[in-house]
């Protein structure tokens, strides 16, 4: 469900904006977006309502938009924390999950995967596994474990 090409380890990003752009570019290159700018607008709109930095080093920028061809999750880990959000609410994050969902997503499997990964983020062990892993391949394996959880329901 999560694509290996959408798992990144990157330490040279300087800001939330750079990170969002980098990830959206990658998603776009895989043909998952019909219009990158429109998708990013949806993501920014959501961030403006309330920052998606949810604490414990995690941010989950996401957008629901017609510009998304197929639901996806991209993951990026940075050892250099990025400041996420504005003003006093800004938080440092190291694990970024970028989510895109088409406005009329019919594929419940995709949505279930996304809800499943969201639930896993509450699990401290899952987060520390991701924070401690050495490369993108290892992270990919941790993320893929979640696929098993979908078949058995919640």
């Amino acid at each position, binding site marked *: 469900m999560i694509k290996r090409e959408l798992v990144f380890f990157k330490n040279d990003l300087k800001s939330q904006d750079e990170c969002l752009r980098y990830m959206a570019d990658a998603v776009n290159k895989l043909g998952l977006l019909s219009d990158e700018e429109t998708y990013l607008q949806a993501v920014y709109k*959501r961030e403006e*309502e*309330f920052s*998606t930095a*949810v*604490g*414990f080093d995690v941010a*989950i920028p*996401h*957008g*629901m938009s017609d510009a998304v061809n197929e639901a996806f999750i991209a993951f990026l880990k940075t050892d250099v924390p990025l400041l996420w959000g504005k003003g006093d609410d800004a938080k440092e994050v190291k694990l970024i*999950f970028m*989510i895109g*969902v088409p406005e009329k*997503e019919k594929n*419940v499997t995709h*949505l*279930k995967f*996304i*809800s*499943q990964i*969201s*639930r*896993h*983020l*509450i*699990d401290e062990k899952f987060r520390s596994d991701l924070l401690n892993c050495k490369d993108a391949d290892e992270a990919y394996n941790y993320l893929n474990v979640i696929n098993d959880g979908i078949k058995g329901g*919640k």
Partner: protein
Amino acid sequence: MYVVGITACPTGIAHTYMAQESLEKELAKRGYEYKVETQGSIGVENELEQEEVDRADMIILCVSIQIENQERFDDKKVFYGDVDECISHPDRVVDKALEFYGLK
């Protein structure tokens, strides 16, 4: 102690489910019996029956949108919590609910 709750955020993509997981963990940790419904992108899951709402000692709604089937809570004392706080500090949300119900 039997607690029912609902979590729901505007896009229903991620926070809804994180908040559910977080709230369930906190309630389990306290040894409470519970059921938490989600209203998100997949629709309504783990739906609360009227009977369950009726026998609940506490009703915790961490919702930032208009929810479906709100009428289940008509004439009930309902504690409204913050979705984001529910994710990062579920203990505070449950403490506030206990206080609200005078159960602390």
